[in-house]
């Protein structure tokens, strides 16, 4: 962990009891017949200079959480604070500030880059949108950004389709750091890349974080990647965070039965090491009618009577480790 982590009394990003429900509409009158409880009371924070990893299986609400923070989706409930300021109550000019400070990089580098714009214009676009005239010429700044992410500046006039997946991801990253943001939200930034290219992009993210003192919220389903890049990790299951811990602590001392199963399910590239595997029964239930009590109880081998009826709350095991499970009341 870096020195910048000294706590200043407030977090860089603070998400409090975030909820996002999507209506399910049916019939000619598009009546709402139910709700997808995609995110149901998520609280998390990211400190300055820190990378918080957010993991969980498909559909657990990771992207929805990210989109609510970015204000691409309107939260149903809850507060999002940036440097202590509640962003649900800010005026348009403050909103513009927010958009400058918080950037995003998404999984599919292709669909997130405008195919009709040259990549140089794509990377330089934030300057125009925010009406910022850097001391030097925009072109020069963009060329600098290209070099920073390991792209040749000569490529500036080319179009996205002329680049490989890894290069397109670099273009997206270059654009995201253009305005020197405080926080970047990555949603599966390397999942679409080949393994040998994945390593290049992960190392690049590490370097940029050091150089520009960035903070990251890193969303991914691959726990090995998340463990590598994160300082702390939050594990999500069916709309809720079930455990948060320091990177190495989560691996060496997982507490929540779901975290344990998740860790044990990951095959390790070491053939002599045979893992003891916890095979979870059944599948992830639907967020439309999530189970009562603890949402994990139907698949939990350690479920007790209380788990079915009462919802566990997050409790701190120590300073670096919180878990939401009745086993640790």
């Amino acid at each position, binding site marked *: 962990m870096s020195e910048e982590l000294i706590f200043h009394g407030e977090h860089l990003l603070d998400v409090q009891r975030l909820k996002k429900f999507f209506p399910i509409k049916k019939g000619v009158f598009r009546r709402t017949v139910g709700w997808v409880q995609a995110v149901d009371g998520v609280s998390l924070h990211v400190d300055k200079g820190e990378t918080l990893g957010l993991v969980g299986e*498909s559909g657990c609400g990771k992207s929805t959480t990210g989109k609510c923070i970015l204000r691409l989706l309107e939260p149903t409930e809850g507060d999002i604070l940036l440097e202590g300021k509640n962003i649900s109550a800010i005026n348009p000019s403050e909103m513009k500030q927010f958009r400058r400070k918080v950037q995003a990089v998404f999984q599919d580098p292709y669909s997130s880059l405008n195919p009709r714009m040259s990549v140089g214009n794509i990377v330089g676009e934030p300057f125009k949108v925010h009406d910022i005239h850097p001391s030097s010429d925009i072109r020069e700044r963009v060329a600098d950004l290209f070099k920073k992410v390991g792209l040749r500046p000569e490529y500036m006039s080319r179009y996205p389709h002329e680049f490989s997946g890894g290069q397109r991801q670099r273009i997206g990253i270059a654009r995201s750091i253009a305005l020197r943001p405080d926080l970047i939200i990555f949603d599966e930034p390397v999942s679409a890349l*080949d*393994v040998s290219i994945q390593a290049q992009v992960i190392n690049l993210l590490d370097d940029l974080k050091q150089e520009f003192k960035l903070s990251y919220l890193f969303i991914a389903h691959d726990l*090995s990647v998340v463990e590598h890049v994160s300082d702390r990790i939050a594990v999500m299951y069916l709309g809720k965070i079930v455990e948060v811990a320091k990177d190495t602590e989560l691996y060496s001392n997982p507490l929540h039965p779901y975290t344990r199963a998740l860790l*044990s399910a*990951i*095959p390790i590239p070491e053939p002599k090491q045979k*893992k003891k595997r916890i095979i979870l029964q059944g599948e992830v239930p639907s967020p439309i009618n999530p189970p009562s009590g603890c949402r994990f109880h139907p698949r939990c081998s350690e479920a007790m009577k209380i788990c079915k009826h009462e919802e566990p709350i997050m409790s701190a095991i120590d300073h670096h480790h919180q878990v939401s499970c009745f086993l640790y009341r």
Partner: protein
Amino acid sequence: MDLGIFPRVVGAKKFESKKMNDRPLLDIRNLKTYFFLPEGVIKAVDNVSFHVGNREIVGLVGESGCGKSVTALSILGLIQSPPGQIVSGEILFQGQDLCKMSPEQLRKIRGNRIAMIFQEPMISLNPLYSIGDQIVEVYTEHYGLSRQEARKKAKEMLEKVQIPSPARRIYEYPHQLSGGMRQRAMIAMALACKPAMILADEPTTALDVTIQAQILELMVELQKLMGTSILLITHNLGAVAEYAKRVIVMYLGRVVEEAPVIPIFESPLHPYTVGLLNSIPKLGSKAIGGKKRLEEIPGMVPGLNDLPEGCYFHPRCSKGREICKRKEPKLFENQPGHRVACWAVREGW
């Protein structure tokens, strides 16, 4: 995983006599599968040779576009033609060359002796029929069972792949099942005909890790029970380390290394294999040794229409020398069972 709950073990088939065991079940020799496109010839599989023994699980790994799926489709005779064509080579399956068979013969082999499990089950499941009917059809077609008997068998099979409430699921259509459940249904269908060999092409890539673990364990359990061989195609090196006995590494249409699983992971020889293994973050390594920078393979995979001369890996290789740029290294046996195509290893520099 407990399979003991099922009253009767279907399968456990003795399909090979002792004598035949010396011969590999599948033996691919110098296979070339090319695609003839207006902009040029794509050598998707270029002189590939390897074998899969009886009851063996062999992992086939390599990055996107290196020819893994085209290899599998070539075995099944499913290469789209035109533009694709098996240009030369032999695919010996139980001693017979699949390349010389008629489409009709191949179709029989596909349904019967070789089954395929794809990444996207919707390709092999017919959306218009209930999953039960599709498995029933395997039994009526291949074993000539009556519909009633076949239905009973189909239900047993769904139980075997641990689809909950199979009596009800048997009437459901593929779109009504979750991804994991569809994958199970496909495995049930693949196993119903008791194949000698399963080609599993990224069988779990689209699934969540906990479901992935369920499906892989299930496949291996059933493989042991039924004595099937598996060619496990995946880019998940963890899954290969765990389940495969032998591993084949491909790069741009060629086999660059082949060895039993332990030497591949513990003493890989080809610089590409070494780079591949070092570039993946390993879960838990941070807790032991602190955070280390990942190793990168520099550059990127060239396009198949833009291949370098000599060794295809040389532009990204730190050990490359003059000869690598000019001459393709052939696979040679460095140690018993460990083959590698690299000048540096061969010449010992």
